[in-house]
């Protein structure tokens, strides 16, 4: 289920973030930062659209291309009917694919884009994703001003829009291979412990990626999961060791704990989450380190919880999925 790509490169990326990400340790990497969660819009949902729209415009500007040069936009987000993506993608007036795999969306988009580019069906493919802390809270949990107490395992939806350009033109970052995840059900029911719900999917995808491509875990300089958070990270390490005899203690980390300083930013609880969480780390710091050759081979594993409040209230398990893509610094 893993496939290698011959001629796919990650060209450029653009990120726009909200106040909590601005305060976080990756602040210097973001292209545009807002101090206010409304970001100048008049509702949380419109703020999310604005963040995504701005990141798409910035991407074109940074790469110096026009919207006519884009052959396809693949985008997804958390809001019902992935509306943020549609409203943000609309002004580009390009062919558009809307996708959903919750917080694994950015990697799903990258796999699709790489496949289109590798079989030469499309030239320039833009992948994009967004999430907004308040629009997600409103949709999935309680009213945003309610401030309901949450357990320590709860994660904090990141606010931002992120996009990247993928094409066959040679650049310093090669998209080397990808693994499409399976839907995993480990009998998890707690929507305030997404790390536990998703760690099983990450384990399955990492294991299958390594076995499919006959690679050792040391092959990668860094394996990075999307948004498992403080506790989910430990669950993944333990489970990988016990179930698959794979030791992740040396080269593994999680975007959810990189995006925020979990010691100083107490409100993020167990760490960041949301589709944009992994994208804000992967499209900035990780791409930067690959360009500077500080990292040579990276495996990005974005994890998504496939559920809705309705199904949780109807006592169904929380399903999860993880997609993986491997990036390499080009010599």
């Amino acid at each position: 289920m893993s496939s290698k790509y011959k001629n796919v490169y990650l060209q450029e990326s653009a990120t726009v973030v909200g106040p909590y990400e601005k305060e976080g340790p990756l602040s210097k990497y973001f292209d545009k930062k807002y101090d206010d969660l409304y970001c100048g819009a008049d509702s949380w949902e419109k703020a999310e659209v604005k963040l995504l729209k701005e990141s798409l415009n910035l991407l074109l500007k940074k790469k110096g291309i026009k919207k006519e040069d884009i052959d396809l936009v693949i985008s997804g987000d958390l809001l019902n009917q992935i509306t943020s993506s549609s409203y943000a993608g609309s002004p580009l007036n390009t062919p558009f694919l809307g996708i959903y795999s919750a917080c694994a969306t950015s990697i799903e988009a990258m796999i699709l884009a790489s496949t289109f580019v590798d079989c030469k069906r499309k030239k320039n493919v833009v992948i994009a994703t967004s999430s907004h802390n308040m629009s997600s809270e409103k949709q999935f949990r309680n009213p945003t001003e309610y401030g309901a107490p949450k357990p320590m395992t709860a994660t904090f939806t990141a606010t931002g829009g992120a996009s990247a350009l993928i094409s066959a033109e040679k650049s310093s970052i090669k998209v080397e291979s990808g693994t499409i995840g399976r839907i995993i059900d480990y009998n998890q029911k707690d929507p305030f412990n997404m790390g536990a719900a998703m760690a099983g999917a990450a384990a399955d995808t990492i294991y299958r990626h390594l076995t499919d491509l006959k690679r050792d875990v040391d092959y990668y300089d860094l394996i990075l999961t999307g948004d498992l958070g403080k506790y989910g990270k430990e669950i993944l390490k333990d489970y990988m060791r016990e179930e698959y005899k794979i030791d992740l203690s040396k080269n593994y980390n999680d975007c959810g704990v990189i995006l925020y300083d979990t010691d100083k930013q107490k409100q993020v609880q167990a760490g960041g989450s949301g589709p944009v969480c992994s994208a804000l780390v992967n499209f900035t710091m990780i791409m930067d380190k690959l360009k500077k050759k500080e990292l040579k081979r990276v495996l990005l594993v974005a994890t998504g919880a496939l559920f809705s409040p309705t199904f949780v209230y109807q006592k169904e398990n929380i399903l999860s999925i993880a997609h993986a893509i491997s990036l390499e610094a080009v010599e």
Partner: protein
Amino acid sequence: MVINMVNKKYEQIVSKHKPTEHREQNALVAFIVGGLVGILGETLIQLFCHKFHISRSEASVCMMITLIFIASLCTALGFFDNLVSFARCGLLIPITGFAHSMTSAAIDYRKEGPIYGLGSNIFKLAGSVILYGVVSAWFFGIIRILIGGGA
């Protein structure tokens, strides 16, 4: 069978990495803050009784209106959620929590308009409280009639 074993192993690892919540600390904070709200309520009742020369039951109604007003104002000004995150049940259980649940929902859904937004969502959280409050009031009323003859 195999799936069950995997699930069991996974469940063990999950519970191993479940942090212990500070239940005692939370309970203590809620107890103190809730108590302070109670003291504030009683002070208001006494104040209304003596200042306006009204009966205790009338003063209680005025006290509730005052607390609802204060809580709703704090929610609207945007800092009551931070207080709730800290004091938890200390502010959610008293009448302040009820007011807060309605105001916060109203703020959230105001952009969807007065009917489909604010109107249909204002009782999103408070609806359960009202429904089960009325049901249990009826239930305890019956018990009171049966035992004490309604006195």
